């Protein structure tokens, strides 16, 4: 079974530029998550999708971050414009359950460096 795919693995941009990350979850997984992991901290949930609907985006900085999952499969996370403090690893995860129990399958992450 293929795992969660993410791209790009690494991205370096200057502040005020934009960046987009892509995620393809495990086939058949209804729930998709984007987490932000800043160095030295645990992953923090940015947004959670159930199929193509948003379940929780309370911690997404909506003035600069956006995410979509148009067909209920793959997803894109965008940052525009980026700030220095956005430097982090962006983790995508998925889970199969309709009412997720917390058991997540993670991708390898996309490491963003903002200069």
């Amino acid at each position: 079974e293929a795992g969660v795919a993410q791209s790009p693995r690494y991205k370096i941009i200057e502040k005020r530029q934009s960046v987009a990350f892509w995620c393809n979850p495990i086939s058949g997984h209804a729930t998709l998550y984007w987490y932000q992991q800043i160095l030295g901290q645990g992953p923090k949930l940015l947004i959670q999708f159930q199929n193509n609907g948003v379940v929780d985006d309370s911690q997404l900085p909506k003035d600069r971050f956006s995410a979509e999952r148009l067909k209920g499969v793959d997803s894109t996370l965008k940052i525009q414009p980026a700030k220095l403090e956005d430097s982090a690893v962006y983790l995508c995860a998925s889970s199969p359950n309709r009412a997720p129990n917390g058991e997540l399958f993670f991708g390898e992450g996309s490491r963003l460096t903002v200069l």
Partner: protein
Amino acid sequence: AQSVSQHNHHVILSEAASLELGCNYSYGGTVNLFWYVQYPGQHLQLLLKYFSGDPLVKGIKGFEAEFIKSKFSFNLRKPSVQWSDTAEYFCAVKENSGYSTLTFGKGTMLLVSP
């Protein structure tokens, strides 16, 4: 909202030493509890989980964790660590109610010296 506290940021052990990593959470209701592990260069993966029943749960690679409800704790243990256990360990908690989110602790970096 719940919070998760991991007691140590860095732990250094020699091979064959025993391991205990502390984890406490703040939510007073029913929870699902997890330990995730991230080996160097790899993605986060589930080590073990507790939903209900026997509070002592066993995971992969000889790890176990004990849920003590009265102490809001879910400590991770292994009797004898190996060099290959070098990794970052994250405790995570989810309220057992619908679409509540999974909250992670800050992680503990374990370094096992051969």
